């Protein structure tokens, strides 16, 4: 069976996000004064093969921990969706 894991990786709260700060400033300069804060992160859409949801989730969790997120400054979360066949 095919799954899509949608992984979000964000900087931990309190960790400086230069990219978010700069985008926020740019938006306000463009006239979007209502913008308070911006934080920028990564989203990864991973197609994985696997029979069992729990097992797939465990593997994705492991991928996040080992490679996709840097636990020193980042945190992650993900959702697993079953792909329609074909």
């Amino acid at each position, binding site marked *: 069976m095919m799954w899509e894991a949608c992984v979000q990786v964000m900087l931990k709260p309190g*960790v400086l996000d*230069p990219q978010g*700060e700069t985008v926020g*400033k740019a938006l306000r300069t463009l006239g979007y004064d209502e913008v308070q804060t911006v934080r920028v992160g990564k989203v990864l859409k991973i197609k994985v093969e696997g029979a069992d949801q729990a097992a797939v989730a465990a593997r994705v969790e492991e991928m996040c921990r080992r490679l996709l997120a*840097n636990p*020193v400054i980042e945190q992650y979360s993900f959702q697993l969706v079953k792909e329609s066949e074909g």
Partner: protein
Amino acid sequence: MAERWENVGLTAEEYDRIITILGREPNDLELGLYGLMWSEHCSYKHSKIHLALFPSAGEAVLQGPGENAGVLDIGNGLGLAFRLESHNHPSAIEPYQGAATGIGGIVRDIFTMGARPIALLDSLRFGTLDEPRNRYLCSGVVSGISGYGNCLGLPTVGGEVYFDSCYRGNPLVNVLCLGLVPKDRIVRGQATGVGNPVFIVGARTGRDGIHGASLLASREFDESAEEMRPAVQVGDPFMEKLLIEACLELFETDFVVGMNDLGAAGLTSACSETAGRAGSGMELDVALVPRREEGMNPYEVMLSESQERMLVIVRQGCEDQVRQIFEKWGLEAAQIGRVTDDGLLRVRENGRLVAEVPAASLSDQAPVYDRPRRRPDYLDETSAFDIDQIPVPEEYESWLQRLLQSPNLASKEWIFGQFDYMVRTNTIVYPGGDAAVLRIKGSERGVAVSTDGNARYCYLDPHLGGAIAVAEAARNVVCTGARPAGITNCLNFGSPERPDVLWQFRQVIEGMSEACRALGTPVTGGNVSFYNETSGQAIHPTPVVGMVGLLDDISKRCTAGFKGAGDVVVLLGSNRPELGGSEYLVQRTGQVTGRPPRLDLDLERAVQETCLAGISAGLIRSAHDCAEGGLAVALAECCFLSSTDDLAPPQLPGRTPAVGVQVSLRSEMRPDALLFGESQSRILVTVKEEDVPQLEEIARSNGAPCTVLGMTGGERLMITGGPAGQQLIDLLVTELWQSWQSALEKLLGE
């Protein structure tokens, strides 16, 4: 329960000393300030008395140790500011950000002096690349330097990298920045002029890095590092770039009295140092410091190590103009206090006094220790090593091939190719050779720069190893035609609380000092990184020398690669049977052992003078230092870097070699020592055939041995020699080149 002082890393005696200074018990904030400023990282309390041995005076020294960077007079009314600094511990935790913020920090040290940063170098050490963690650290560090340095528009023009199992768990990341400043406009980190306003500019202050660099670098490094993780900071090179431009624009005015970057120990350090140096005082209100986070208390504001911030002391009455300049660059500038004359650092929060201590007591009255030193026992064993236990190999070609693919000797282009080494169009000798050369636009002059430090030699004989680090760095610079002018350094060691480590430390400094005196290169500054150990296992003593040299006429600059066929290859200096501590010996035995090569400083000077004279007379067409891997590897490198260009080229990395070489080494020595031994004070040069006598004459007058080895040409690297004069090496240059060129990428490219 821990005692009060223990919580901030101080001893009971140090606590008593604080009470004596204050005449009372410090409150928590005050104690925190002392804890930080009296940490090893900020106070140099274990190293100070040893560092005093360095010769730091010289005619050309405009600024010696004590300021944010040293400055050398390079003529044309210009000063060259330069400094080397470590970011080892942060990089061990988070390689990308650790290295990136390391660049950020050293660059701030340079423009704090009023200097326009012009180039970077990086000196790196990692564990061996068979371990995934070390590969991760290495590629992370390299991309961190690349990400930050490239964004600033600073060329990273050189550096070095070694891989050795002693750095497993303790990688070293030392970075060097160079800058140019008009001699009469050097800015000092001094808070003078009572009533002058004090500004903080740049990034807002957050909770990041509280107890970051300073505490991390002042403790043994172990599992508890895990809980220090939030201390890791994220660098913002874009902010730093704006900060550089804004500050340099500010220096064009006369609004600035003094400036200091906010590095380790943040505001605490910047305020107490600027006031301390000037013998003044300072008063500030933490409530005026722009914050990134809500609810920060005075302790957090004073100790935060948020990046990309500067402290600026401004002439009274110029506040608005100063604000305008920062505004233009989109930066915040907040007035947080003023200079006083009572010698006190007075901290308020919304007007309420929260700390009051003598400024200088934080910055330079930390206790100074002369702790016990003892020669380590392992030296008996390593120095007794006898090379005759190791049989001479059957053949030498496969050993040469193997050495050239060792990550310690292979081409470093996979690394420096990730750095923009050309931006600012001053780099006229690119990385890949001995030293990089930068032109000084608007003059005929240039600056050559190199970093060096072979820690294996230091491990086997720290005194000798320290001296060799200086000599080799000077030799590298000399190979470009530049006269060595001065050094900065970074001393990476284990815990100074261990007598054997401190003994090594002292020996290295003595060795370095001796070489600096002999070669006329004063020490203008540096940095100490202790506690580089994991689970009681210290790294090899690793001094890194950052040497700068001056070229009066850049059209005479010289590079390492052969310049086409038909040139005569000459060795300045002499070969000795010295395999101790060599890469070859490590590859053969898996051990760092033996005695390192000898260093005769008179010979060193003679060789360097000969090389300089030969280059400036226009005789020498290429010059390359014989270093790790010995003569055979040096000859191969001269082929790899060869070109047929007539003009002195900047030596483009990554080009296919143009010529081979044929040499014969007459010697009674065992051939592996002859080929791969790492004897010091040797430079391989080429000259036109008709110029050989003239070079020999220069060598004779300087007292340097000078031997014709052979001739460039063909497509092969051919070496005959040894007692029987047999064929030792006969290989196609392009084939050797391919494996040398691609070795690091194979290991790290994934």
